C-alpha cells in the first residue's frame, strides 16, 4: 500500500495531573476505514480531538501526507483536509439544511461590488450532494430540525466530503441512532471510503465496527491495547479486547453469551 494519509506517533496528552493519553500511535491509509474502539474513558475522544486540532498533544507528532503538522486550532486541521463530524454538535436545528451545509464555507457572489451569500448555488449544491448520499430533501430551505438523526449525520458527512476532506473523523455517529438509521450512516461511510477518503470511525459497538472497518484499534486507559486488520480478528475477540478480556470472560458465564 501507499503511504499513510495521516500518522499519529506516540501521542500523549496531559490535562493537569491527569494523563488522558500516554503514547498512542496509529496510521490511516487513503480509502481505508479505521475503527477506533474503546470503552468510556479510554481516551478516544481526546485522541480524535488532538487529530482534529482541538487539543494540542503534550508529546508526540502528527504526520499528514508525510509532513509533520502542528495544528493550532480546528480551522488549521480543516484547511489541511481533516474534517470531524461530532455526534451531537454537528448541526444547528433551526437553520436550514443549506445554511448548515455551507456553515463556515459560505459561497458568495458579487453584485455591484457587494458580496452576497449565494443562496441559489448553496441550495443547488446541497440538494445535489444530499442526493448522492441517497437523501431526498423537500427543499434545501427546510430546517435541519425536520430531519432524523441519521439524516443529520449524513448531511454532516456530505458536508465534510464536499469541502475536500481527505480524512473524515466520525465521533460515535451511530450511538444514538435506530437500526435503520445506523444502516444508512454505515452505508454512507462505505460510499465515502470508496471515494478514496480515509475514515476514522469511533464507536463502542463492535458490530458497527465490523460492518465497515478495514483496521481496528482498541484503546484502553489512554494506551493502545491492540490493533488488527480485517479478517485477523473475530468480533468476539474484539469485544473481549475492548472490555478488558478477563472481566468479560467471567461475566460471559453468568450472562450466557448475551453480550
Amino acid at each position: 500500500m501507499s503511504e499513510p494519509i495521516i500518522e499519529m506517533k506516540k501521542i500523549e496528552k496531559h490535562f493537569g495531573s491527569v494523563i488522558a493519553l500516554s503514547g498512542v500511535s496509529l496510521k490511516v491509509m487513503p480509502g481505508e476505514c479505521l475503527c477506533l474502539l474503546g470503552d468510556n474513558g479510554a481516551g478516544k475522544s481526546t485522541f480524535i480531538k488532538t487529530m482534529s486540532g482541538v487539543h494540542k498533544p503534550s508529546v508526540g507528532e502528527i504526520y499528514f501526507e508525510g509532513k509533520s503538522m502542528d495544528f493550532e486550532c480546528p480551522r488549521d486541521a480543516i484547511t489541511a483536509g481533516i474534517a470531524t463530524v461530532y455526534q451531537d454538535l454537528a448541526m444547528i436545528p433551526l437553520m436550514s439544511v443549506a445554511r448548515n451545509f455551507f456553515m463556515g464555507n459560505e459561497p458568495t457572489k458579487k453584485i455591484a461590488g457587494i458580496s452576497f451569500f449565494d443562496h441559489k448555488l448553496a441550495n443547488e449544491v446541497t440538494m445535489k450532494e444530499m442526493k448522492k448520499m441517497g437523501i431526498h430533501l423537500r427543499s434545501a430551505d427546510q430546517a435541519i430540525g425536520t430531519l432524523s438523526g441519521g439524516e443529520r449525520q449524513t448531511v454532516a458527512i456530505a458536508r465534510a466530503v464536499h469541502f475536500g476532506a481527505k480524512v473524515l473523523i466520525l465521533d460515535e455517529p451511530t450511538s444514538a441512532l435506530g437500526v435503520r438509521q445506523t444502516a444508512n450512516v454505515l452505508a454512507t461511510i462505505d460510499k465515502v471510503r470508496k471515494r478514496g477518503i480515509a475514515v476514522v470511525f469511533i464507536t463502542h459497538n463492535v458490530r458497527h465496527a465490523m460492518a465497515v472497518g478495514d483496521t481496528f484499534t482498541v484503546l484502553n486507559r489512554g494506551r493502545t491495547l491492540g490493533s488488527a486488520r480485517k479478517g485477523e480478528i473475530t468480533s468476539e475477540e474484539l469485544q473481549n479486547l475492548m472490555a478488558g478480556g478477563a472481566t468479560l470472560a467471567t461475566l460471559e458465564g453468568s450472562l450466557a453469551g448475551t453480550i
Partner: protein
Amino acid sequence: MTETTSTPPVKTDKPDERVKTRSSFREALIRPELGGICGTILVFTFFLLTASDSGMFSASGVMNWSIVSSQFIIIAVGACLLMIAGEFDLSVGSMIGFSGMSIALLSVVFGLPMWVAIIATFILCMGIGALSGWLVIKTGLPSFIVTLAFLFILRGLTIFAAISTTNKTIVGGIKDAAEGDWLAPVFGGKVFTGLFQWLGDNGWIETFERGFKKGQPVVDGIPMLMVWAVILLIFGHWLLTKTKFGNWIFASGGNAQAATYVGVPVNRVKILMFMFTAFCACVFATSQVIEFGSAGADRGLLKEFEAIISVVIGGALLTGGYGSVIGAALGAIIFGVVQQGLFFAGVESSLFRVFLGAILLFAVILNTYIRRMITGEK
C-alpha cells in the same frame, strides 16, 4: 429522536412519499415574522376602529407615531442581531444616556467642534461595546450579567460626569454648538422638506393657518431619525439574510461549539455584534441630543427592555440562533403605535403597559408555535 419516523434512502427521483406536501400558503406562513405581522395588523385594525377620528392617521399623527417607532427600530435592529448571535445587551439604555452626555460635554463644556464630539463618542461607545463583548467571551459569564454591570456603570458614570463638570444632570446649549456643523444634520436634520412644502402648497397635507409658520406644512420633512431607522433596518436585514456574515451570526447563536468546529470565528462575530448594538444606541442618542438640543443623564431609561421586547415580538428566540430583523422592526412599530395610539384614543395611559404585556404574550405564544412548525414538531 423518534426512530419510528426514520427515513430510508429513496433511490428514485420521486419525492419521499412520507413527506407530506405542504400548501404554498402554509409555507409562506411559516416564517419568523408571522407573529409580528399578525400583531401589526391587529394593532392597526384596533386603532383604525377606535381612534380614526382623533387625528392619529393625519399627517402629523402618522409622523408622531412613526418617529417613536423609528426610535424603537434603531435600537431593536442592534438588539436583534445581537440576540440572534446568542447574546443580550442590557446596557443599551445606559449607553444612550452615556453617549448623549458624552456628546454634550465634549462639545458644550470642552468646546470641541460638534463633529469631533460625535465621532469621538461613537468610537468611545463602540469601544465599550467591544469591551463588554470581550468580557463575555473571556470570562464565559452570561452576557446578561456582564451587561447588567455595564447598565449601572454607564448610568453612574453619566450622572457623575454631568454633575462633576456642570453641576447639573441636564446639559443644554447643543443647538448653538451644532450650528453650521457638517455632521450634526446627518443625525438631527430633516430631508424632503421641499416635497412636504409642495404637498402643503397643493393642500394635500395640512398647513399652519396662523402664527409665524403660516403657510408651512404641519409636517415639514422626514427627520433623519427615520432615515437612520430605514438604513439600519435594510442594513441589518441584508447582513443577516444575504451575506456570509449573516450565516455566521445564526451559527454563533444557534450553537457556538458547532460553529467553532466548522471554522466560524464565533468570538469575533459576537464582539462585532456588541459593537453594532452600541453603534445603534449611539445613533439613537445623537439624533435625540441634536433634536432636543440637550442631553440628560436619565435618557434612555428602560430602553434595553423596549428593544428586547420589540425583538421578541418580532419572532427572535431569546436563546439565540433564530430571528428576523424585519420582525424586530414590526415589533418596534407595534410598540410605537400602541404607545402613541392609546394617547390618541384617549385611553388612560397606565393601560399602555397592560396592552403591551398582552401583545407580548400573544406574539411570543404564536412565535413558539411557528417555530415548532419549522422544526417539524407540529
